[in-house]
């Protein structure tokens, strides 16, 4: 039987068959490649966490290997600074959803990293830049106050301007900054323009031409680090975070 190629029936059957075939092929491809993709995404997150603690993978040491040797523990704390025994993997916490919740309801992942200069505590930060999300990880010394290192990333900030936040030239400024003032109040780290340095408190220099992204970094740090205040206080008093 030959069908008229211009008939409606032929057109409908043709499109249905085509879409079904394409759908099947795509789902097979997706299923076959998914494990590899998930591993890549996990490795990328591990690389970012390690970057905050200033550990960079090299040719002969893979990210996964470095992660398993350096990250000795990871857990979740609440805003009281108490360790929560939830059955949640800190690694798979979606920080982008957590920062939108009221501070008291957030679950706060902490990664404990063993480095050559002592134990560091790495926490994730997440916020908004000019064009899209910005995020990062900040590593703290065991005094729960001084930043050991920071890593920032972005989705689509302007190249050469806002996108510079991912460069070490920007993130290395955060090293040795305190997030609590001398009275022990949370102050975060301000991102300020040249010539507008505050007289007290920690600050770093903003990126010229990347004002909105820089302000985004400041807001991100305030919003993401503040809920950890109680946890950092406990660290500074030398208390182990009890289970």
């Amino acid at each position, binding site marked *: 039987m030959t069908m008229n*190629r211009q008939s409606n029936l032929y*057109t409908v059957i043709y*499109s249905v068959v*085509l879409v079904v075939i394409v759908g099947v092929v795509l789902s097979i491809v997706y299923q076959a*490649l998914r494990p590899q*993709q998930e591993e890549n995404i996990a490795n*990328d997150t591990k690389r970012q966490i390690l970057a905050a603690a200033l550990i960079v993978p090299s040719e002969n040491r893979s990210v996964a290997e470095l992660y398993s040797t350096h990250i000795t523990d990871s857990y979740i704390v609440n805003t009281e600074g108490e360790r929560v025994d939830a059955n949640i993997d800190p690694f798979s916490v979606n920080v982008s959803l957590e920062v939108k919740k009221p501070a008291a309801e957030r679950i706060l992942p902490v990664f404990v990293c063993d480095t050559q200069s002592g134990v560091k505590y790495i926490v994730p930060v997440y916020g908004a830049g000019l064009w899209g999300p910005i995020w990062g990880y900040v590593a703290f010394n065991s005094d729960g106050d001084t930043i050991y290192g920071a890593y920032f990333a972005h989705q689509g900030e302007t190249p050469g301007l806002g996108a510079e936040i991912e460069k070490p030239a920007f993130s290395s400024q955060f090293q040795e900054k305190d997030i609590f003032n001398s009275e022990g109040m949370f102050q975060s780290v301000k991102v300020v323009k040249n010539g507008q340095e505050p007289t007290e408190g920690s600050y770093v220099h903003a990126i010229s031409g990347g004002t909105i992204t820089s302000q985004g970094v400041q807001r991100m740090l305030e919003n993401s680090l503040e809920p950890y205040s109680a946890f950092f206080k406990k660290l500074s008093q030398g208390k182990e975070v009890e289970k």
Partner: protein
Amino acid sequence: MNLKKTFLPLVNPLSKENPVIVQVLGICSALAVTAKMEPALVMTISVTAVLALSNVIISLLRNTIPTSIRIIVQLVVVAALVVIVDQVLKAWNYEVSKALSVFIGLIITNCIIMGRLEAFALNNRPWQSFLDGIGNGIGYGVILVIISFFRELFGSGTLMGYQIFPQSWYEAGYMNNGMMILPPMALILAGCIIWVHRAKNKDLQE
């Protein structure tokens, strides 16, 4: 069959019928992915693969496609191939896939692909269509590589990520040209390539 005639679809798009500098198609992605050479090369390979495969598939189907929905059929085939390329890149070259981000998805809208399907694959045999796809993909890629070569060399001082200009130059006061990193410079470079190309091919001058 005449050998020269067989390979005409492969050779023509490299210069005389180049999709970017003669037909001025696919300019949008030429601006977006040419700041560095590596994404430009991956984009070239991706576009060539999608173009060749969709050309073959459409050419095989050309006598069955209902004319009233032929554009939709072409889009479905191209979109499916692009999703496959995107998934493969995410699995095998995650870094580059991050750098290219949305531009892989935008291969669907690359005018070269729809143009070749409409103009060539619907009227020609699969083998010819395959050569046409490869030829146009390479023709597109050659321009991308030339543009990204200049943009990366003068914008970042590197090629394929390797430092070309020694540190001593920077200490002596040499600076990377920030303009090279920004998209408008790709358009200006494409214009320069068209200028040189037309000057060499008098028959293309209007």
